[in-house]
């Protein structure tokens, strides 16, 4: 078990004045079997904000800023206790997590990639083997893909970032009848949000990180999960404004708190 102080700051800057700005943010850890949130602090310079949960039980901050502005700043500070030995056993949406989405859909090459693994009978062993194989097949390369890249494209190029690794692995799992979900969060000592995968076997959800070839342990804090990246989008916004471009500055720090 580990305890972390997590600080998440996000600054949106708009190229011109906007107004009637609605936003939804998913970067608020919540309490679940493997992590316990001791405190959550939210600061945001909007007219109002409120908290809600989506259908995957992810916490979300949503709100509105009416008047003209060209900046929105968010700060989330959380104290989170993580214990990876606790498992989530929620089976209520398994059929949903078995269905491919346009981001996870397989192409022929991926189907063929699966073939040598058909001899595995135990889904848990198969899942581990697939993740390891994928780690060796793919090359991590920043900038090689973007947020719209699907599993097929990334797999064809054999290059990608954590989001692509996750989408491909989820696609392979679902094709093998193993329910799988996309997880977004932060990994200890990382400065960026990370993405990994959870698969369901033996009546529980296991976390696996194909980008690092690791099983998810106490060093991961979860923001949200879903069918694919789209369900875990950290920021969604709608506003009035003409030809606006927007930049996001994100700063993350996740430090372990060591008790004497």
């Amino acid at each position, binding site marked *: 078990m580990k305890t972390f102080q997590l600080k998440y700051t996000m600054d949106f800057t708009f190229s011109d004045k906007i107004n009637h700005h609605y936003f939804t943010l998913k970067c608020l850890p919540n309490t679940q079997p493997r992590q316990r949130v001791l405190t959550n602090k939210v600061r945001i310079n909007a007219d*109002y904000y*409120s908290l809600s*949960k989506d*259908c995957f039980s992810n916490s979300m901050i*949503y709100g509105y800023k009416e008047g003209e502005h060209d900046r929105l700043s968010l700060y989330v500070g959380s104290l989170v206790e993580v214990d990876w030995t606790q498992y989530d056993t929620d089976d*209520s*949406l398994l*059929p*949903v997590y078995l269905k491919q989405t346009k981001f996870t859909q397989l192409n022929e090459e991926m189907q063929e990639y699966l073939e040598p693994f058909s001899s595995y009978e135990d889904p848990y062993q198969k899942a581990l083997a697939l993740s390891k194989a994928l780690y060796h097949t793919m090359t991590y390369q920043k900038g090689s893909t973007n947020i719209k890249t699907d599993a097929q494209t990334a797999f064809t190029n054999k290059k990608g970032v954590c989001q692509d690794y996750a989408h491909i692995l989820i696609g392979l799992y679902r094709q093998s009848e193993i329910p799988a979900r996309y997880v977004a969060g932060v990994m200890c000592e990382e400065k960026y949000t990370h993405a990994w995968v959870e698969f369901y076997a033996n009546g529980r959800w296991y976390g696996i990180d194909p980008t690092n070839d690791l099983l998810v342990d106490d060093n991961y804090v979860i923001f949200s999960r879903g069918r694919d990246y789209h369900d875990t989008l950290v920021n969604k916004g*709608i506003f009035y404004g003409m030809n606006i471009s927007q930049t996001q500055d994100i700063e993350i720090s996740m430090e372990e708190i060591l008790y004497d």
Partner: protein
Amino acid sequence: MKNLIEQQSKINHLLKRYGVKFGIYKNNTFHEQLFPFDCIPRIITKEDFDYLNKGLIQRVDALNAFLDDIYGEKRIVKDGIIPTEFIYSSSGYLVECEGITPPQHVHSHISGIDLVEGKDGKWYVLEDNLRVPSGASYPMIARDLCRRASPKTFRTNDVEENRDYAKLLKEVMDSVNTGGINAIFTPGRMNAAYFEHSYLAEQTGSKLVSSNDVVVKEDYLYFKNYDGSLEKIGALYRRISDEYLDPMTFLEESLIGIPHLMEIYKKGNIAIINAPGNGVADDKGIYYFVPKMVEYYLHEEPILNNAPTYLPYYEKDKEYVLEHFDDLVIKDVAEAGGYGVFFGNTLSPEQKEAFIEKMLREPRRFIAQEVIDFKDLPIVENGETVERKADLRVFVLSGKETKVWKSGLTRFSRNPDSFIVNSSQGGGFKDTWVLSR
């Protein structure tokens, strides 16, 4: 009656002048056209209507119980009554509605149930429409015009009043309202059904609003008055489909929706009429299971008949379909509108072989039904009375209790050989009289 028929062209002229066009969401597509009116009403006897009334209330109550179950505990799936894949492969199932309980547990407030009367005198349900069923305003307006054109007709016939639709609708809105005013939410003036939206708003005393008139603030939905003051809305009768409802939850590019509407809905701070996610209950594949829902949730024998339907998904049904292929209507569950519907006997041997192969590969995708030989109704065409196929959409309203409107929309096919009475195939409509004795 003769007197009324003589007024047909005059009434149609008035309907055109009032802008009464037909626009209907059917399987997610929107159809619009002038909707010719035929003066000879469909007449439903008191006895028949009493039967339909009981059966429709039962059916809609079961459908509402099903929707509450599916987005909650899913007992009907766990108990093996409906196979899992029929729920999750339905395009009408919205995971975004998981765990949401609407006010008073009502999901389908306004249900449009499509029926036909067979030549055997039996009524059959063809389809349930639980998303945004439209069309109630047509018989309301047509009746009003007929009454004005020929008052005598209604003095000499014992016809049930149909002017109470607005009252029934208002009752429904009031009974689920979470505190605030009632509003009808329209995509806007450019929409072909705008006529119906404004007509119903006026008749029910609701505010007619579009996206720019409202705002979600502090967990409630407000109407923005001209002077900048805000009025809370407690019930929203929305006339746009689910995917456009809230761009933060569904289609991001929707400009006609209300951002964050789903968040306050989850918190129980507004009633959305009809509830989002209802499509899972009016899917072509789910239709087969509606009588089973009646048994499962209400512990009653289903009163109304479905058209006899077979699911190739089940081995026994598959055999039947293969054996009687030429006598059946085949429907592709995945296709929208009138597409993907064909009669088995219209395929060439090669087409048939190819289709059967497809059906065996994806049995969940298809349903097969017996062809119902339904009753012709007389219509006046070029001064002559001819017979045409017709169906009936009955409107069932659910609030504190479920009530059936004593009228309905009778649509007829203008093509003498057509069995398909679909608005997109260019039909007309009739008034529907329910006799009071």
